[in-house]
């Protein structure tokens, strides 16, 4: 076999490998989509027949056909609403400090390391923190007493759930907000300082508005995470059988993922379908939140362009 023949053979072979590899990457890419498709179709087929407005207006029941999602739905909305109120100011403020104020010294590096680690701490450990620090406040019992007008310990209440989930999503929000602040060009800051603005005036009037769409994305990302979290709430003992909606922050509560977990763990097959109906509601809320943010972001970007 002469040399050019050898080269030809190798050449064809290498290109055959190239085509094979390309199909392989396509297959790998599609695995995620296939899984997503199977998951969603399975849930829709199981859950849709059980879904009705009534489902959202009934409390849990032993009978699958009478079981409802009301307590879990409103419980989740309470906790998520309060978590948003608590995390957004703290998370954005922390990011502003780290990105705009702190000298890049040891302290900032240290906090950065802690936040980076916290984002990787399993959520169930936050549940343990919540159980001891908020539910029981280091007491052996949860009998409430009033201290400075606040009921302590928080017990298995909306307030305890909110505090736990807030600590859980704060690192996520801080990291996302920092990325958004980093993307703001320095020329904006220099222009503001050049006109005699203080650091806060520069941040408040120029940097934050410019970073707002990115921060908003971070907010939705972290709130979506809080909405789907199950383990920490199970750990701190949010109840699975709650036949009322919370009316104060001290009320016990249940949440959508906990109720779904409870239904899915029951042996009767009907409850699996009820769980699927619950999942549809949960995913619909998540989808709705994400759709709202896409709309808001598009509007913010358009008004910035104008």
């Amino acid at each position: 076999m002469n040399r050019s023949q050898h080269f030809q053979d190798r050449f064809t072979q290498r290109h055959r490998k190239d085509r094979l590899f390309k199909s392989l990457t396509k297959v790998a890419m599609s695995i995620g989509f296939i899984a997503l498709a199977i998951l969603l179709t399975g849930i829709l087929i199981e859950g849709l027949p059980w879904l009705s407005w009534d489902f959202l207006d009934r409390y849990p029941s032993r009978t699958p056909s009478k079981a409802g999602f009301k307590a879990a739905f409103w419980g989740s909305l309470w906790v998520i609403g309060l978590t948003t109120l608590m995390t957004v100011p703290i998370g954005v403020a922390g990011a502003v400090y780290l990105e705009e104020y702190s000298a890049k010294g040891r302290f900032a590096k240290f906090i950065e390391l802690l936040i980076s680690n916290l984002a990787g701490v399993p959520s169930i450990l936050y549940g343990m923190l919540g159980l001891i620090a908020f539910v029981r406040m280091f007491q052996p019992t949860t009998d409430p007493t009033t201290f400075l007008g606040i009921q302590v310990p928080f017990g298995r209440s909306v307030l305890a759930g909110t505090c736990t989930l807030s600590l859980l999503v704060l690192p996520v929000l801080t990291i996302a907000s920092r990325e958004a602040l980093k993307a703001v060009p320095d020329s904006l800051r220099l222009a503001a300082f050049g006109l005699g603005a203080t650091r806060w005036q520069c941040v408040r009037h120029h940097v934050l508005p410019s970073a707002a769409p990115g921060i908003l994305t971070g907010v939705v990302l972290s709130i979506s995470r809080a909405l789907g979290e199950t383990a920490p709430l199970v750990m701190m003992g949010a109840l699975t059988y709650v036949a009322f909606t919370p009316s104060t922050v001290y009320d016990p509560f249940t949440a959508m993922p906990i109720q779904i977990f409870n239904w899915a763990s029951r042996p009767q097959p009907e409850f699996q379908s009820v769980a699927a109906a619950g999942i549809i509601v949960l995913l619909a809320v998540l989808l709705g939140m994400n759709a709202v943010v896409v709309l808001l972001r598009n509007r913010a970007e358009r008004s910035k362009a104008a």
Partner: protein
Amino acid sequence: MRSLRESCIRHGLLTSASISILTSFGILFILIKESLPFFEDVSPWEFLTGTNWAPLMVPRDYGVIPLVVGTLLVTGVAALIVIPVGSLAAMYLSEYASSRARRILKPTLEVLAGIPTVVYGYFAITVVTPALRAVIPGVEVFNALSAGIVVAVMIIPTVASLSDDAMRSVPNALREAAFGLGATQKEVTVGVVYPGAISGVMAAYVLAIGRALGETMIVTMAAGSTPLLTLNPLDSVQTMTGYIVQVSLGDTPAGTPGYMSIFAVGLLLFVITLSLNLFRIWIQRRYVRYDT
């Protein structure tokens, strides 16, 4: 006046940033404090080296190895799937897909990362486990394989998306040099781009493995609650997180060693994920940055 206001604001912001210090040490402090009474009853040596875990029945045994092995088994199955699948998907996104396809594919894939874990748990017990039992003989109702597969699905977007970012940061000059030498697209991707992005890709793997180790709902629902020492993924196992959930759902009275043991297991889990996180941060810090 102006500087007073500025300094108030500065301190307010600093306080917000410091919450992370409080949370970090809070978790560590609580885990240590609550597991101390447990370690008065059970020596740390017995806890870490014992091979039988039976904290809730008499005679009690507190050897954590079966829980650790159960966790590693599920994580191992997930890693075996996610490392090839996630990396290949990232190669497709970064090297093969048109920029338009990429703009659509990447956010859609990331939808998978936003699905709550309890939904994945439901998927595991209603779809994956029955499918496995139909195909492979000897699969138990609860098994590590099903949990591992679903955990892998959950972390595919993490690996694919972060590795894609890392590979795209490899400068085009390197690719062009390789193409100029007559390399095929596959040779460029595997031989130049992937090694060039290795620190970012490794960080993505470690992050994903950390998430698999700490994953709770999928393993609780699909892997079972039998702390047996086994390496067979078709068997039912119990993970560290699964045990913690089992106890907190059950009626084990607070204050008993059985209840206290969850904090010891939590402390161990914290130490393991902390070392993984520090390893990941270390890799990221020495990230090769290409200046173009």
